[in-house]
């Protein structure tokens, strides 16, 4: 119901230009501008909802939680990947230019095809691997693993990724080669590798220790700058490089 949130006692108006693309009408994208009433609390998502409900109902974009946890509403704002719901128009002067997330194929308007990102996530085996547990799970006498707060703290940050894909739009290497597993997938692999309950690192290293794994990264670091949840995927990728190098050395010695 964000459309009716923008009241009549607005502080001012803003100009938003949105890159439109309607593949069943035209092969070329075009820009469309909207003048909107805004107040201090108006987010970019509020603005898009206002456009959809009041100005042009054909504008398509993804959104859901409007509280920066579902990861749906990533777009480029003046060339920078951002979550629409956590971007406030009060922070912008002049025209605001909105485009779909960079480096993904555009399906329509601000909607991009995320399939390749989902494939990358699945490829790194992002789940707890413990094939021969000391105490197998028994529903009749269920027992947890032990994990100290310090052990939890080692991986917790990397478990906070909301899969919004902003880091892929920020990553020049992913832009050049979409086969690169990319920041979020590697951070997630790293999250499980660091988990004291997990024994799947060896399986994951095979995936990470190759050109499309950690070695595509040239440490630009923009992925961490745009991350809305401070996951710091660049740190995960580079810690992953150290692990991958060790993995290679160990494999050499074991011959």
């Amino acid at each position: 119901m964000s459309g009716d949130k923008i009241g009549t006692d607005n502080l001012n108006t803003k100009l938003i230009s949105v890159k439109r693309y309607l593949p069943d009408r035209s092969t070329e994208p075009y820009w469309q501008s909207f003048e909107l009433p805004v107040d201090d609390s108006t987010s970019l998502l509020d603005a898009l909802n206002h456009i959809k409900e009041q100005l042009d109902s054909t504008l398509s974009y993804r959104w859901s939680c409007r509280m920066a946890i579902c990861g749906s509403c990533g777009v480029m704002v003046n060339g920078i990947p951002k979550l629409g719901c956590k971007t406030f128009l009060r922070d912008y002067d002049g025209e605001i230019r909105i485009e779909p997330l960079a480096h993904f194929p555009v399906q329509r308007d601000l909607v991009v095809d995320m399939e390749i990102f989902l494939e990358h996530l699945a490829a790194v085996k992002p789940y707890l691997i413990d094939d021969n547990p000391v105490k197998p799970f028994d529903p009749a006498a269920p027992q947890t693993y032990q994990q100290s707060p310090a052990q939890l703290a080692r991986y917790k940050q990397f478990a906070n990724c909301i899969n919004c894909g902003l880091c892929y739009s920020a990553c020049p290497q992913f832009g050049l080669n979409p086969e690169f597993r990319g920041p979020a997938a590697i951070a997630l692999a790293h999250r499980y590798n660091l988990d004291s309950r997990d024994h799947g690192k060896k399986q994951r290293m095979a995936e990470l220790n190759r050109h499309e794994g950690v070695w595509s990264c040239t440490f630009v670091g923009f992925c961490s700058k745009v991350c809305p949840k401070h996951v710091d995927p660049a740190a995960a990728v580079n810690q992953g490089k150290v692990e991958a190098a060790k993995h290679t050395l160990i494999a050499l010695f074991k011959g």
Partner: protein
Amino acid sequence: MQQRDFDIVIVGGGGAGLRAAIGAAEQASQQGSPQRIALLSKVYPMRSHTVAAEGGAAAVTSAEDTHQAHFDDTVSGGDWLVEQGVVDYFVHHAHQELVQMERWGCPWSRKDDGQVQVRRFGGMKTARTWFAADKTGFHMLHTLFQTSLKYPEIERFDEYFVLDLAVHDGAVVGVIALQIATGELTLLRAKAVVLATGGAGRLFRFNTNAGIVTGDGMAMAYRHGVALRDMEFVQYHPTGLPGSGILITEACRGEGGILLNKDGYRYLQDYGLGPETPLGHPENKYMELGPRDKLSQAFWQEQQAGRTGKFGDSDVVYLDLRHLGEKTILERLPFICELAKSYINVDPVKEPVPIRPAVHYTMGGIETNPQCETSIAGLYAAGECASVGLHGANRLGSNSLTELLVFGRLAGEQASRRAAQTEWADSGVLKAQADRQQALLTRLCDGQGSGEKWVDLKHAMVQAMESGCGIYRTEEGMQQSLAVIRQLRERYRQVRVNDTSKIFNTELLECIELGCGLDIAEASCLGALERRESRGAHQRLDEGMQKRDDVNYLKHSQVFYQGDGHAELRWQDVDVRFSAPAERAYGDAGKEGKA
């Protein structure tokens, strides 16, 4: 139109749907013959609204706690309108499910000794709520999604909007889904179908819910004759941010946060929740740890008495966390800090957070039996979309995340058992139903009609629900809301969308969601109007109806769809086999009683 065959189709990729998918896969492999499972969701699974749950998941954990205590809290919390056999099953299976989540990697917060930590929650007699900081739903959802990737038999259909079920001879035979990216229909033939589509908070203007929480699955089952049960019970969460309604978790109060009116007074002591507990020493079932219905009602009373403050246009009270200290706040409630700072520019470490009640949870839903099966054979429902009978007239915080697991798994297993003994039905029924859906879509996009706009109807619906079916209700207000909703249902028949594109047509989806919303809004209003008593979240101001009336209304409401005609209501007995209805009391008043 493409047709695909599956043993089991699961609609909804949130906590309940993912747990059902994994439960079905495990059950099938135990049965010795793998089954093919389709998991459809209108969004990528990790976007599902489970992601926004913050506080935690309840289960009897400590040696001093008992199943009986969790049972008693849940039954009295629900004002005795719960199915007691279901609650009994729930409390006995809660702990194993949370441990199973831990074994799958869920990053539960820990004690120094490496054991899982629990926190206090409203209406619970003791601390039994597991949590992962204040992003419990987020971590549970991602753990379930990631774990589901281990099962090759689960085939996902991300961004497929399920339009309808196909039912033949009293049994479900499949679903019809719209692929959002292409606008094409896909037919999925199935031997069993699980609905796990979430609640309907978006029927109301001011709510904590994500935009996708539009009640589609409820409407689908309802239109095929399944009863919607107890739909009049809508939970107002006492602490939403003014303006947006964004959720500020009950865990803030579990950790010791207090609620103040504009005079800095802890007003809850005036509403049967006292005496005041000392600052920094929260006590279960006292003051801020009372149940949600009572706290939201106390806000309303303070508002009427002119003791609420203002934040922008909103009347508010204040959630004060400052005495917890920066370290605890940042460690236990980091997301709350982020939200308050981003959305209202308030730092909870430094100032009290203005808050107000917001619609949060749909207690009622698709009626199922204790095994999650609906009145249509092979059709199961679990999670917020379902009414298995766990929450009654008021849900206790942290019971619903556990519900997703306990009943998601059960629904998945039951679906798998049925699929093992059932053959696919003839495709004809599915095809005929798909043709009907295609015709409806074509009509919505044909540019004809009287020019009714979905946006206008939606705004009128959310306004009507808020004004007539709020925290306190009156006969006149509810009658008016029901009349408005019925008019809107008529006007909806003339509705059209502007966007005629087949590719990612979100206007069409919003319009379809609105049609679902209007149907179930009628059920909600009708249940509210006909329940002439006050119980849990349903409070009436009308003379003679301000108290609970067990003689006439210790009954579930069941509302049945009647096509374009008016919905019909019946009453159904409640399972009270273990605990006879007693007075529901908190604070010192609840000390003596069992509750």
